[in-house]
């Protein structure tokens, strides 16, 4: 389905690259700020291709990353699906926002989604969900800005350019 899209190769390549960012070794002080890259990836592509990259693809991709990295079940799958769903729902509003508003909006969405889903995936662990969610949201805001500034033009060009 994705490979059938024009420029679908870019989605597949970025999808394969994302787990590498998730396992890249970081010092503990930086590791606590690591965003959930698979969730950002799905959110970004849902924003570029609303209606095509949606909740079910997000769910399937999140699940794949969980199995690949041995993460707890639903750590990525549910947030990916929920963010894709929210972006699809709020797509027109997001498009009309400035970059700063848009990234803040995405950050708040990620914060709320993590507050809901993180306790489900971590079950027995007495973790401070609040601190994890806000740190992940802040780093997601910064990365979203970078993605929209540098990666969005290339992504749109590869997906939507007309054949000569």
């Amino acid at each position, binding site marked *: 389905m994705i490979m059938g899209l024009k420029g679908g190769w870019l989605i597949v390549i970025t999808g394969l690259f994302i787990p590498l960012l998730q396992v890249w070794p970081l010092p*503990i002080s930086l590791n606590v700020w690591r965003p959930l890259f698979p969730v950002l990836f799905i959110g970004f592509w849902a924003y570029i291709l609303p209606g095509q990259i949606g909740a*079910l693809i997000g*769910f399937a991709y999140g699940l794949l990353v969980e199995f690949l990295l041995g993460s707890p*079940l639903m750590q990525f799958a549910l947030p990916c699906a929920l963010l894709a769903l929210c972006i699809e729902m709020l797509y027109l509003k997001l498009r009309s926002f400035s970059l700063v508003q848009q990234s803040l909006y995405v950050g708040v969405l990620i914060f709320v989604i993590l507050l809901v889903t993180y306790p489900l995936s971590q079950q027995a662990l007495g973790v401070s969900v609040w601190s994890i969610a806000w740190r992940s949201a802040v780093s997601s805001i910064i990365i979203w800005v970078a993605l929209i500034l540098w990666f969005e033009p290339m992504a749109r060009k590869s997906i939507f350019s007309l054949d000569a």
Partner: protein
Amino acid sequence: MKPLFAQRRSLVSRLFIVFLLAAALVAVDHLFNGLASVRYILGSISKPYYQISNAPQQLVSSVSEGWQSRESLVLENQRLKARERILKAKTQKLAALSAENGRLRALLNSSALLGDDDIVVAELIGISPDINRYELMINKGANDEVFVGQPVIDATGLVGQVTDVYQYSARVMLITDERHAVPVQINRNGLRAVVAGVGLPDELALMNVGATADIKQGDLLVSSGLGGRFPIGYPVARVSDIVQDGISPFLSVKTKPMAQLDRSRYLLLVFPDGNSQ
């Protein structure tokens, strides 16, 4: 004919489907362990990710090793040879002590003998990025007969146990993980207890130690072998702090792991009592 404005499933119904799928998958995984084979297959192809992410660090260490001067290598070689001689001498004494210990235990009719464990060296290839889980990835897996529950040690003490085995790699849960506990005994007096992870990188807690227990700061805790998971006699932690509040019937005992959990690059997989490949 395909309608021009196809009606897509409503967002609420898609949300419902997602939650239903999630609940079904969690149930299948918890009740029937039905996703184990999928985990095994996909986990087996995750090794390159860990190797690539670890490559810069390995490159730096190999380059720095390559730049060492001949003089420093000769010095290190001499130091290692001297250390080897001391260790050999100690091993001779250890063999005699081990035999004597065996005879004494036989006299006492005790079956809890220190086993003659086989050991295989594994290299660390990745660390779990999840800040709530203390887990490592090693480069030995089902191909090397690694098994779930296998004890892992380093040169200084108990590191943890294998929790997932893939074809060419395995996941190790560290003793500092909140989900981990080890039956131990105090080396000085044999007092039994359980030491558990508290989710901090250099702290373990000794559970349910009575207020009158004979325990001192600096006591060494070794694995007691109870439960059959960890072989008897491996150093686990050293008591670092004891607090008695006067109200609770238990002491609050903090310990520090003996193993160099955040520094060891090479780990040792223990095959208890020669259960090895």
